C-alpha cells in the first residue's frame, strides 16, 4: 500500500500500517465487547433477585441450594465468576430463560427475524425517502422543500414513537381500516408458510403464497413506515448537511463554470462524494432502529426481540433480558465498527 513509499529517513514502524490498523480495530472490538459483558455481568450481580432461587425455586432444600450455588460458580471470587461468564457467552451460552424454559439463544433465534424484518423495511423507507429529500433540501437551500425537510426532522426528533404508533393504529386501523391491526399475521394465515428465512414477506414470496404475503404486508406496513419516519428524519438531516458541505466546495464551482448541467453537478459530482458518509449514517440509523423497535414492537404486539426483552423484564427473567441486551449490543458494536472501517478504507483523506 501507499505507506511503504513515503517516510524516508523516518523510523519504520515494526508492522505494516494495515496490520496495525487491523490489530487496533480488533482490540477495540474486543475491549468494547468485554466492556459490554462486564456491564451485563454487574447488572446480573446487583440484581435484588437471588440467582440460585431463580434456578431451583423457593421450595428447594438447603443441600440443593448449596449444590446449585457451587454449580453456578457463586462460591468463586468475583473476577473468576466474570471469567466463567465471559467464556460461557463466547461459547454461545446465554443461560436458560425462566419464563419459557428454553435456552435464551433458542428464544432469540426464534424472535429475531421478526425484528430484523421490521427494522430492515423501516430503514428501506428511510433511505428511499430520506436521501432524496436531504439532497433536494441542500440544493434548494431556503426553499419550501428545505423548510419541509427541517420540519419533518424536528417532528421526528420530538415525537414519542410509542405515541405516534398508537395514533397511527387509531387512525389507519381503527378509523380508516386501511391496514391490519397489531400482530405480525392474521390468525387464519398463521403456520401456513413453512419458514425459510424467518422473514415472513420473503418466505411467503418465495413459496408463492401471495394471500399470506398481502396479509403480512398489511400488518408490517404501519410499524415499518413509523420506524422509517424516524430514520428518515435522521438520514435526511445528515444528507442535507453533507451535501451542503460538498456544494460549497470549489470543485462544484469549477464544474458549474465548465457548464455542466445542474443534474450532473449534483448527482454526478457532489452526491458521489458523500456516498461513503451516507453509508455510515445509514448503518447507524439501522442500528438505532433495531433498538428503537422495542417500543414499536410493544405497541404493535410484534413478536420480536424488543417485545421478548420487555416481557422477560416484567417477569424478572434476567437471563433473557441480559441475553437480549448482549445480542443487540453486539450488533450495535458490529455496525459501529463496520461503518468506521468502511470510512477508513474508502475515504482517501483518512489514509
Amino acid at each position, binding site marked *: 500500500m501507499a505507506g511503504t513509499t513515503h517516510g524516508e529517513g523516518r523510523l519504520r514502524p515494526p508492522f505494516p500500517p494495515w496490520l496495525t490498523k487491523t490489530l487496533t480495530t480488533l482490540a477495540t472490538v474486543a475491549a468494547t465487547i468485554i*466492556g459490554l459483558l462486564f456491564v451485563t455481568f454487574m447488572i446480573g450481580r446487583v440484581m435484588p433477585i437471588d440467582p440460585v432461587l431463580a434456578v431451583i425455586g423457593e421450595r428447594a432444600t438447603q443441600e440443593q441450594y448449596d449444590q446449585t450455588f457451587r454449580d453456578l460458580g457463586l462460591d468463586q471470587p468475583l473476577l473468576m465468576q466474570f471469567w466463567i461468564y465471559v467464556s460461557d457467552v463466547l461459547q454461545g451460552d446465554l443461560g436458560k430463560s425462566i419464563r419459557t424454559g428454553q435456552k435464551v439463544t433458542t428464544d432469540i433465534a426464534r424472535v429475531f427475524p421478526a425484528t430484523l424484518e421490521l427494522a430492515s423495511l423501516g430503514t428501506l423507507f428511510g433511505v428511499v425517502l430520506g436521501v432524496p429529500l436531504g439532497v433536494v433540501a441542500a440544493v434548494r437551500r431556503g426553499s419550501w422543500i428545505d423548510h419541509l425537510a427541517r420540519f419533518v426532522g424536528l417532528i421526528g426528533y*420530538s415525537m*414519542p414513537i410509542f405515541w405516534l404508533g398508537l395514533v397511527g393504529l387509531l387512525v389507519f386501523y381503527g378509523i380508516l381500516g386501511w391496514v391490519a391491526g397489531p400482530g405480525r399475521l392474521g390468525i387464519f394465515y398463521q403456520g401456513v408458510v413453512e419458514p425459510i428465512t424467518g422473514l415472513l414477506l420473503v418466505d411467503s414470496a418465495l413459496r408463492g403464497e401471495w394471500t399470506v404475503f398481502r396479509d403480512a404486508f398489511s400488518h408490517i406496513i404501519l410499524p415499518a413506515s413509523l420506524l422509517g419516519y424516524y430514520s428518515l428524519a435522521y438520514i435526511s438531516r445528515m444528507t442535507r448537511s453533507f451535501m451542503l458541505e460538498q456544494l460549497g466546495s470549489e470543485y462544484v464551482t469549477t464544474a458549474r463554470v465548465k457548464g455542466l448541467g445542474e443534474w450532473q453537478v449534483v448527482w454526478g459530482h457532489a452526491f458521489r462524494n458523500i456516498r461513503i458518509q451516507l453509508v455510515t449514517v445509514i448503518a447507524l440509523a439501522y442500528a438505532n432502529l433495531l433498538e428503537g423497535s422495542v417500543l414499536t414492537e410493544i405497541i404493535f404486539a410484534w413478536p420480536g426481540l424488543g417485545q421478548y426483552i420487555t416481557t422477560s423484564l416484567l417477569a424478572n427473567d434476567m437471563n433473557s433480558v441480559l441475553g437480549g441486551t448482549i445480542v443487540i449490543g453486539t450488533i450495535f458494536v458490529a455496525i459501529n465498527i463496520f461503518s468506521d472501517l468502511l470510512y477508513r478504507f474508502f475515504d482517501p483523506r483518512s489514509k
Partner: protein
Amino acid sequence: MSTSQGLRDWLLSEEPTSRRQARFAAWYKGWLTLRSNTLAMLGLFVLAFLVLAAIFAPLLASHDPFAQELGQRLLAPGEDGHLFGTDSLGRDIYSRLLYGARISIYIVLLVVMVAPVVGLIVGTVAGYAGGWVDVLLMRVTDIFLAFPRLILALAFVAALGAGIENAVLAISLTAWPPYARIARAETLTIRNTDFIHGIKLQGAGPVRIVTRHIWPLCISSLVIRVTLDMAGIILTAAGLGFLGLGAQPPSPEWGAMISEGRKYILDYWWVATIPGIAIFAISLAFNLLGDGLRDVLDPKEDNA
C-alpha cells in the same frame, strides 16, 4: 424609561469598565440574538409555560389528580367540566397533566445534575492529563457510547427496580459519554493556549487550572448539547414510563398515562392521545430552543 435606557446603554457599551459589565453585556447580546429567532423564542415560551404550570399546578388544576370517581370514567373532553376528559378511573386528565409537568421537570433537573457533570469531569481530566489516563478514560467512554441506550437503560432499571429515580440514573449512565467527548475536545484546544501557560507560570496546579479555567470555557458547548439532548431524555423517560419501568401508578407521569390509555385507544382516543401531545410539545420546545442557543453560543457551526 430613562433607567431602562441607561441600563441598555450600559449593557451595549463598547468599553466595559468592569468584568461584570463585560459579562452581562455578552449575555445581553446573546439574548438579543436569541430573541430575533422566533422558533427558539417559541420553544422558550413553551418551556416557561411548562414551569409555570408545574409551579401553580394546585391553583390551576380543576380536580384532584388522584381522586378516582368511577361514575365519571372515560368522559369525553369538555364533558362535565373536565377540560380534557377523564381516564379509566374517572381522574381528570387536565389536572393530571399539570401535576405530570412537575415530574417532567424533576426528571430533567435530575439528569442535568448528573450526566453533563460526569461527562465534564471525565472529559476534562482525560484531555488535560493526556497519556494513559486519556486512553483509558476515552476507551471507557467509547464502550458506553457503543451501547444501545434504551436497552441498557432497560437493563439498569431491571436491576435497580422500577421507579423515577432509577430511571433517571439509568438514563444518566447512558447519557454522559457524548458530554465527555465534547469536554475533552474543548480541553485539548484550550490547554495549549498562552493564557493557560501564563496561569501555569503563576504557579497554578492542575486542579485549579481544570476547575477554574477550563470548565468555564466548556460550559457553552455543553449547554447547547444538554438542551438538544433534553428532548431525547424526555422521550426515553416517557418510554420507560410507558413500559411500566419509570414512574409508577398512580403517578401522573405522561408516559405512564399513555400506557394506561393504550387499552382504550380505539374507543376513547383522548386518554392516551392528550399526554402524548404534552410530551411532544415539551421535546419540540427543547429542540427549538437548542437550535437557537447553538446559533447564539456557537456561531461557527453551520445551522444544519
